[in-house]
């Protein structure tokens, strides 16, 4: 058995990245993800890696672009306002098809907002906060153990598809401490990186890493290529967890730390004789339409719970496609939904469908 440690979510992302072979980190501190940088600053020099605190998020994401261009595994992290600053670089790196991992430990917005947990960057992460027709793979862990496992997966997925992969967590996940069981050895998958700009030694043609294509017909061909890739990912990489769904009257839809509050509500409801289930999207992009399809006939209604005004709600409604009613409850601005908030909404829905 591998090492067992008690770790904060933010720390475990850094540790997982190092275990996944990442030796390049560029970032700028921001609450509530700073422990990730703190850990990297202490650990990277010990493993022969590079930790660099850039002068801003804009610099950091462009350093990521540079390092990723050489084919090295690279990580950056921030929280909501910092991720907004990184959007231009994210769009450029997507256009250049660079693999890298970006962590967003979300806090309340808009604007400078606050430092308490939130999920209000769902649109930004899944629908492209930057310009152009691009997607990132977006992974949504809901425990510290899963933060470890998905961070390792994120690097493998990024390399496999030459795509940016985002870990979308929130302040609760980043700050909470749980036991993590590490594997003895990581499964570091290696993929062809003959595209990398890492020195041609006069033995091959120059590799060009760019997102600029001046001829619109050529740019369209590139875009068609990107879309084919996104289609392939949509078909093969959807992930979700189904919990307690058999015979559920109402199925909750929630990701990340909110899914755990939902599990608390499921327990509370069971005590009152009400059967609730949960579908927890683990990939937010691609959204697990296949998971919704599997359970579509079971409940009377779906209830989406988020720490936002209802962003994932739109994807749930698209997947349900009018076949069942989809309700929403959530909190904003750094406030955390309680089991009571969820139960009140459940009672209201039950009333309506009795």
């Amino acid at each position, binding site marked *: 058995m591998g090492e*067992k*440690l*008690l*770790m*904060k979510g933010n*720390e475990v992302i850094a*540790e997982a990245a190092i275990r996944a072979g990442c030796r390049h980190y560029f970032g700028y501190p921001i*609450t*509530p993800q700073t*422990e990730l940088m703190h*850990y990297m600053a*202490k650990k990277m020099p010990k493993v022969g890696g590079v930790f660099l605190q850039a002068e801003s998020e804009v610099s950091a994401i462009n350093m990521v672009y540079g390092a990723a261009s050489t084919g090295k595994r690279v990580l950056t992290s921030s929280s909501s306002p910092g991720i907004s600053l990184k959007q231009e670089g994210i769009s450029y790196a997507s256009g250049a098809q660079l693999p890298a991992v970006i962590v967003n430990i979300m806090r*309340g917005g808009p604007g400078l*907002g*606050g*430092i*308490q947990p939130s999920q209000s960057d769902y649109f930004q992460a899944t629908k492209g906060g930057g310009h152009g027709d691009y997607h990132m793979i977006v992974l949504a862990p809901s425990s510290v153990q899963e933060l470890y496992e998905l961070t390792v997966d994120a690097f493998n997925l990024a390399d496999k598809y030459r795509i940016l992969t985002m870990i979308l967590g929130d*302040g*609760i996940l980043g*700050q*909470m*401490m*749980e*036991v993590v069981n590490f594997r003895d050895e990581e499964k570091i998958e290696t993929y062809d990186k003959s595209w990398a700009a890492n020195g041609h030694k006069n033995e091959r043609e120059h590799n060009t890493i760019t997102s600029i294509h001046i001829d619109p017909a050529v740019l369209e061909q590139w875009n068609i290529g990107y879309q084919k890739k996104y289609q392939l990912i949509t078909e093969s990489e959807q992930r979700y967890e189904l919990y307690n769904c058999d015979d559920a009257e109402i199925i909750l839809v929630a990701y990340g*730390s909110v899914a*755990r*509050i939902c*599990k*608390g509500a499921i327990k509370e409801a069971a005590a009152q004789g009400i059967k609730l289930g949960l579908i927890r999207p683990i990939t937010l992009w691609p959204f697990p339409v296949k998971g919704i399809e599997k359970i579509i006939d079971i409940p009377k209604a779906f209830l989406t719970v988020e720490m936002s005004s209802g962003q994932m709600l739109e994807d749930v409604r698209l997947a349900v496609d009018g076949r069942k009613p989809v309700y929403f409850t959530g909190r904003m601005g*750094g406030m*955390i939904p*309680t*089991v009571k908030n969820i139960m009140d909404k459940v009672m209201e829905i039950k009333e309506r469908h009795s």
Partner: protein
Amino acid sequence: MELRFDKRINIFCGHYGSGKSEISVNSAVSVKSAYDDVLLVDLDIVNPFFRSLDAKNKLESLGISVIAPEFANTNVDVPVIGPEIAAALRNQNRRVILDVGGDEDGARVLGRYFFDIPQQDYDMFFVFNRSRPMTRDLSETIEYINEIQLASRLKITRLINNTHYLGETTPEDVLYGAELAREISEKTGIPLAASCVMKGFKHDIASRIDHPLFVLDNHILMPFK
């Protein structure tokens, strides 16, 4: 054997995430059973989450005063230390518990009280949890002790072994931590004050250690608990 807080001022420091806040809150409750005027100071200017201030209502209902940096638990991530903390440190009739922020970064705030603490009757506890990734062995743990002493301009006087894996803790984990404490003591001369377990810990541990056991109540809760 019980852990006794003999000094008027009790300071808790250590690597962040080692359990300082939970131990500080429990210490305040323990001190309150023997003294009337007890103050818990949440002096964490580094981490705005999961802090002893979260237990404020509970502590105040027990008659324990609680103060914290000016904007703690709001969205203003600005460390402002009020004058009432220095006043409390000089008040000979008050028992004071200081819950200090993690690492040397958190301990630096103590340097500001260089003219208030060293002259007084105080204990400074170094809390560690051997299941945390940065305090696994002797040399790295002593590095934290040295860095915190330098930043705080204070000497650590006692050790607290808080080795645990939350609900998965076994007696062997606690003993594994106590072993490191013994090594630290031999190297630095700082005595081990206690090992900690949570209330309801179902295994016998008291008969297997030669130092006090500090049984903790869980006061700082997760939002979904």
